[in-house]
């Protein structure tokens, strides 16, 4: 277990998540992609923390990432519910008129 291997795993997680976030049509599936990306970020942050500078500050950063994840989830659920209620759909493609 070295910094490089941990970063490689983190990169793999991030890329898989990115693939999902770009390709999925359903809002909740996109959220799962984002979650997976953040999962990679957590792992990378932990690797940096352990192998480069094991100070308390690094832990705080990780805590913030985890918080960001929950915020993202909560808002994602809320928006998905709202979308679902208002237009009976949960497809990102069908929500494009939001941008018009």
């Amino acid at each position, binding site marked *: 277990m070295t910094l490089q291997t941990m970063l490689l795993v983190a990169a793999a997680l991030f890329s898989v998540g990115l693939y999902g976030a770009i390709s999925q049509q359903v809002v909740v599936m996109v959220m799962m992609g984002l979650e997976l990306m953040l999962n990679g970020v957590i792992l990378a942050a932990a690797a940096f923390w352990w192998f480069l500078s094991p100070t308390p500050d690094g832990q705080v950063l990780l805590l913030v990432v985890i918080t960001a994840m929950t915020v993202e989830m909560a808002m994602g659920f809320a928006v998905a519910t709202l979308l*679902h209620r208002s237009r009976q759909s949960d497809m990102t493609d069908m929500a494009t008129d939001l941008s018009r």
Partner: protein
Amino acid sequence: MDLRSLAARRTAVLAVEVPGWGRTRCALEQHVRTRGWRLADSPADADLLVVCGRPGARLTAAVEHVWGQLPGPRARAEVTTAEAVPAALDRATAELADGAAQRRDADGRPAEPDPGTTATATGDDGDGDGDMDMDMDMDMDDDSGDMDHGDMDHGDMDHGDMDHGDMDHGDMDMDMPMPGGIGLAGGGGDDQLADPDSLDLDVLHVPLGPVLPHWPAGLLLHTTLQGDLVVAARAEVLLPADGSPTDPPVHGTAAGRWDAVATLLALAGWDDAAVRAARVRDELLAGGQPPEADRLARRITRSRLLRWSLRGLGRLPEGDAHDRLRHWLAGTEQRRSTELSAVADLVTGLDLASARLVVASLDLDTADRVTVPVEAGS
């Protein structure tokens, strides 16, 4: 003590009451209790299937269906009088303990898995073919349009190519893209209550009864569930075969009231009080005058938690579920026959648990033979 006799100490019995044979079922419950056995919650839980009474054709089909869901080792018995219960139970126990017979039974069973929703499965939904008890009522009309993703013609949307064309209710062949022949839950149609959460959850058609513990004999309630909310219901009673029970009816007597108390309390999850109420009932049936009845009645009436969970359920002009329970306990119940239509109407809009409590609180006398199916929610 070998394992089999040890296991027999906890034999679980699934009782099926045919309308009119309440007395037999009470006797069965009493014998189960005095032997230290217990009543099963569902077919999967049961070792023994005991039919109390002579079921009619549709009820027989339902019993057969449930019989197929007992995991085995299993045995079944049919009793029609209270006196016949001990002998029938002894025979069934011997059959359970007969290893060779059980192995033969297991070998003879089909290998494919049983359908789900077992506690409620009826095997027969009135349309005669009865091979798939999941109502394939899939509301495929495009204007209602919330058969999720099914009717969306997206370019590369490869959703298991649902072909509306060969969606045939009659013969469900297994090459459909639906595993086990069970369709996706459909979206709500026009015939139902609008989803109170306006989330348009999937709709499931779940028949409640006729073989269901703590449930009126022979009652079959076709429910449409959205989430766990009953959005439409239709009630009917599956009839017994010709020939009436020889035992006097329990319903309408003091014992019948305690039977209703026991049923309601068992559903409310208060096992201790439920079992004690059943004991009072059995002593009354035996002609005794149980001294502990008053104390138990006071204890049940005093329970705040019970009052809290029953308050406001199944409101009728004369009171709610808890009022009716108090009347049973005080022995001041007015005789009144609840129409089946009223049952369907009362449970519509409730969640499954409340619906079950409401049905139990009505203390239906299905032996009255109200046979016309009645609908609510349409």
